[in-house]
C-alpha cells in the first residue's frame, strides 16, 4: 500500500490554517485510493503542531525537527524533507500552494529527480490513475495532469480548493514520531532577516461588507475616481488587483489577491478585472460577485453571480445614478 504524506505548513511555530485544506485533500485521496495517509510538520520545536494534526484522521504524524529549520530557508527545508523522505518514503506528497512552499518544493523535487504539480485545484482518480487538475492560461483553461516516473509525486493545492471544515477527526489520537534530521551548516546559504510589514495597514478590507474592485480595465489613474464614486454610492470600500497598485494608482494596502488581502464580503463588484488566479484566490470567498468586463471570456465571469459584458465607462455612471435613486 502506498503512502500519502501531507506536509503541513508552520511559520514561526504557528500552524498555517490553509494546511487543514491540504489534510482534507489527503483524506479525500486516501479514501479514494485506499492509500495510507500520514502527515508531517517540519521545523524547530513544533511538537505542539504535530499534536494538533494527530487529532485528525491520519495514520501517523511525524515531527521533523532541526534547529536549522528556524528561520525558514529553502536550503534547510529541502534538505530536511529529502532526508526524511529517504527514511520514510511516500508516493504522494501534498502541500498547500503557499509562497513558502513554492520557494522550496521545486528544489526538493528536482533534488529527488522528480516533479511537482503546482497550484492544483482538485484531483481525479480514474482507472487506477491519479490526475490532478490545475488552471492554465490565467484560469482560461483547466488541465488534467498526470505524473510520469516513479515519484515521489509532489502536489501543491491552491488556497480554497478543499474545505478545511471537511477535515475528519480521528477516533483516537494518531501516533506522533519525532524525526531529528541533520542539516549541516554549509547547506544553508541564505541569511533571512526578520519578517516585516511595509507600512501600517490603513484599511482592513477583510471587514468590508461591500467591495468595489478595479483592474486593468480602468485604463488610467484618473478613472479610479469613477470607481470611487461607485464604492461611495454603495457604501463600500475601494480595492484593486495587483497591476493597479503596482502602478501606484491605489495604495498597496488596497490590493486583493495572493500578495494582498484575502476578503469575503457580501458583495464583490469587479470592474475591468480579468480574474487572474492570483487575484481570484483573494476574493473567491465573497458571498456574491458582480463582474463588469468587456471581454466575454474573462475568467472572472466563471465565478460571477451577475455578469455584465460591456464597457465599464458606459455602465458605471448610470449604475451610480440608479443606486442613488434606489437608496433614496
Amino acid at each position, binding site marked *: 500500500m502506498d503512502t500519502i504524506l501531507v506536509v503541513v505548513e508552520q511559520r514561526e511555530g504557528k500552524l498555517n490554517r490553509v494546511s487543514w485544506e491540504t489534510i482534507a485533500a489527503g483524506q479525500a485521496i486516501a479514501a479514494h485510493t485506499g492509500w495510507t495517509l500520514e502527515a508531517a510538520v517540519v521545523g524547530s520545536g513544533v511538537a505542539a503542531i504535530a499534536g494538533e494534526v494527530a487529532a485528525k484522521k491520519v495514520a501517523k504524524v511525524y515531527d521533523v525537527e532541526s534547529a536549522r529549520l528556524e528561520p525558514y530557508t*529553502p536550503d534547510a527545508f529541502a534538505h530536511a524533507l529529502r532526508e526524511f523522505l529517504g527514511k520514510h518514503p511516500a508516493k504522494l506528497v501534498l502541500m498547500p500552494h503557499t*509562497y513558502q512552499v*513554492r520557494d*522550496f518544493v*521545486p528544489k526538493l*523535487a*528536482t533534488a529527488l529527480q*522528480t*516533479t*511537482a504539480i503546482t*497550484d492544483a485545484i482538485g484531483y481525479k482518480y480514474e482507472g487506477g490513475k491519479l*490526475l490532478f487538475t490545475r488552471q*492554465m*492560461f*490565467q*484560469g*482560461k*483553461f*483547466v*488541465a*488534467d*495532469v*498526470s505524473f*510520469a*516516473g516513479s515519484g515521489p509525486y509532489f502536489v501543491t493545492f491552491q488556497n480554497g480548493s478543499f474545505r478545511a471544515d471537511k477535515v475528519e477527526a480521528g477516533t483516537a489520537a494518531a501516533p506522533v514520531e519525532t524525526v531529528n534530521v541533520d542539516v549541516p551548516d554549509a547547506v544553508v*546559504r*541564505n*541569511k*533571512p532577516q526578520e519578517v*516585516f510589514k*511595509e507600512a501600517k495597514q490603513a484599511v482592513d478590507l477583510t471587514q468590508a461588507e461591500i467591495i468595489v474592485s478595479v483592474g486593468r480595465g480602468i485604463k488610467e489613474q484618473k478613472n479610479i475616481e469613477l470607481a470611487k464614486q461607485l464604492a461611495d454610492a*454603495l457604501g463600500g470600500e475601494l480595492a484593486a488587483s*495587483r497591476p493597479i497598485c*503596482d502602478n501606484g494608482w491605489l495604495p498597496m494596502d488596497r490590493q486583493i489577491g495572493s*500578495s*494582498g488581502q*484575502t476578503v469575503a464580503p*457580501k*458583495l464583490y463588484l469587479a470592474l475591468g478585472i480579468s480574474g487572474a*488566479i492570483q487575484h481570484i484566490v483573494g476574493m473567491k470567498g465573497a458571498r*456574491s*460577485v*458582480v463582474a463588469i468586463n468587456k471581454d466575454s*471570456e474573462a475568467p472572472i*465571469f*466563471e*465565478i*460571477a*453571480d*451577475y*455578469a455584465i*459584458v*460591456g464597457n465599464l465607462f*458606459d455602465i458605471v455612471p*448610470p449604475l451610480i*445614478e*440608479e*443606486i442613488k435613486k*434606489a*437608496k433614496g
Partner: protein
Amino acid sequence: MKILVCMKQVPQKDAPLKLNDAGTWIRDDVSYEVNEPDAFALEEALRQKEKHKGEVVVVTAGPARAMQVLREALAKGADRAIHLEGDAFVGLDAYNTARAIAAAIKDEKFDLIFTGLQSDDYGYAQTGVILAEILGLPHATIIMQIEKNEAGIRVKRELEAGFFQFVDMSLPAVLTIQSGINKLRYATLIGIKQAKTKPLRKVTMDEVQSAVGGNLQKIEKLHVPQKSKNTEFLEGPPAEVAKKLVEKLKNELRVI
C-alpha cells in the same frame, strides 16, 4: 555584474484562446507577448547593469516566433541573446526547460540569473528554482528589491498578506522577480536599430538533447473550466443594465 534573464513568450493577455482538436493544447494562431514578470526581470537586470556595470544576456526557449521577445530585450538594452529554438522546446515541463537552459549556458559564468516569478501560460512558478538546483546555486523567490553589497546581495522577498523579508545572499544566485519591482522602460529608436547588430546565439534541441529527458508531468487534457456558479448575464443598453443590476443588488443580494 553578468546577469542572465530567462524570458518567455506567452499568449497576449486578452487574446481569445481556442483549444486544438485533440484538446491537449491551444491553437497557436494567437498573438503573443513577453510574459509580464519576465519584462520586469529584464528591466531589473538593465538597472543593475547601469549601477554596477557588466553584461545582460537574455535567453528564451521556443519556436521562431519567440525571437520577438529577444529582439525587444536587445532593443531595450540587453547585450546579447540566446535562443533555444524549435517546436521541440514548446511542450517541455519546467524540469526539462530548466535542464535545457542549464545545458545551453554551461560554458558561461553568471553572477545573477533572473526569471519572472511565473508564466502567464503554464503558471508553474518553478523553472527558476529548478534551474538554481541544477546549477547548485542559492535562490530566492518573488523578489521586490535587489541591493548589491560587499558580501553579495540583499534581496527583498515578498511574502503573503503584505509581509516582506530581507534575505542576504552570496553570488552567484538565482532570483525569481515579481511584477512591479520597477517601472518598465520603452525601447528607443536607437536601441531598436542597435539590436539588429547584437550577438544572437541559436541553440537547437540536438545540442542540448543529452541533458533533456522525458517529461515528468504530462498534460492529458485541457478543458474549459466547469462553472461553479450559475452566472446570470445582464444584457441591454447601459441604462437598462444598470437598472437590472440595481434590482438584483436590492432584491436578490440585499446589499442596498
